[in-house]
Each structure stands twice: as C-alpha cells, then as structure tokens.
C-alpha cells in the first residue's frame, strides 16, 4: 500500500542552526502536504506541493518537491525555539477520497 517514509525521527539543534526533514516514497507522490504539531497541540497545515520540482518558501521555511515526485523536504534556516514541534509530511490518496497518508514525523528540539 501507499507508504510515506520520513527521516530523521528526531533532531536536536542549537538555536540558530539549520534543520531539514525528508519525506520519501517508493511510488509517485500525488500531492505532498506538510503539517506542524506543537507539543500538546494538533497538526496545523503549513504548505501543499503539487508540481514536480516545486519550491515554496514561508519566511525561514523552504519546501521542495522532487523532480520525480518521490521525495520532498522541509528546510528551516536559523532555527528558533518557536520552531519546536513535530513536522509531518502527508501524501494525498488518489481518487477524490480526501484521505491523507502521514509520514512518521520528525520531532525537532531547539536548544536556546
């Protein structure tokens, strides 16, 4: 079945360092979405990537969709303590089901 692999599982960084999480699939990803879940909170939508090779930026966050649409990444430049949380990628299941398949998530800890 459709699976989305996400690495690393955990990342500890010093405030100001960069951070990257990767999302991979053995099959073509149709529509990658990224969500952030703060500790004790619920997932919140960040961005959606649809096109091959697409790059989108939100302030210090850069999202990329691979040329072959089999991988995606989220890069945070100069992390801040407010970036702490778990970042999930999710692939949209085809067929107008609206269903998302979530990756395992990467939990980011930022040391001040």
């Amino acid at each position, binding site marked *: 079945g459709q699976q989305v692999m996400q690495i690393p599982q955990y990342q500890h960084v010093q405030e100001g360092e960069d951070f990257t999480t990767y999302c991979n699939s053995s099959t073509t990803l149709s529509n990658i*979405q990224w969500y952030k879940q703060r500790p004790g909170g619920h*997932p919140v*939508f960040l961005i959606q990537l649809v096109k091959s090779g697409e790059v989108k930026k939100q302030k210090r966050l850069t999202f990329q969709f691979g040329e072959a649409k089999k991988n995606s990444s989220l890069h945070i430049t100069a992390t801040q303590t407010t970036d702490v949380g778990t970042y999930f990628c999710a692939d*949209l299941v085809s067929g107008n089901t*609206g*269903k998302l398949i*979530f990756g395992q998530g990467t939990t980011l800890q930022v040391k001040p």
Partner: protein
Amino acid sequence: SAVISQKPSRDICQRGTSLTIQCQVDSQVTMMFWYRQQPGQSLTLIATANQGSEATYESGFVIDKFPISRPNLTFSTLTVSNMSPEDSSIYLCSARGQADTQYFGPGTRLTVL
C-alpha cells in the same frame, strides 16, 4: 479556514465501557475524518465519516469497535466501544478544506484503566 472543536478534551475511563467523542465544525464541510495518535507517534486514519451513509473504515478498524455518526455537514461522533487499555490514545477529528488540505480539532486524550 474551518474551526473545529472536540468534546471531551480528555477522559479517564474504565475497561469495558464506551466513550463517545463529539466533533463540531463551524462551517459545512464535505468530508470529515477520524484519526488515532499514540503518544509520540504519527496519525493513523480510522475512518472517513460520510454524511447520510455509513462511515468508510480503514484496514484494522471496524464499525463494531468504532461506530461513527455524521448526521449533518458540521457534526460527527466517534464512539470507542468496550474499551481496553490498548485504546488509550489521542483521537483527532479533521475536516477537509480547500484543495484537500485538512483542519484538525484539538483532540481527545483518552486513558483507559
């Protein structure tokens, strides 16, 4: 965007009992979903709540254990039946937004003793 509320926010229940979780959306939405999230884990889809028809369950989840209602386009309930400690988890509802994004409720933290 949609604002979603869930009740209760948390509960502690005894083994063998059932708990019904309510999910309310502040606007009409076509699709609503129920997820389970173990602490420190990813989200696992339980089912899609269909308005006016039976829910569509994912592999490993059955209607007898997780009956779902969706009486209208803004409300859904999930019941966790005959609970055991293994059902202890966070249960999240979500609503389909624009371009197939999802808005999530705050979750219900369930502990089964």
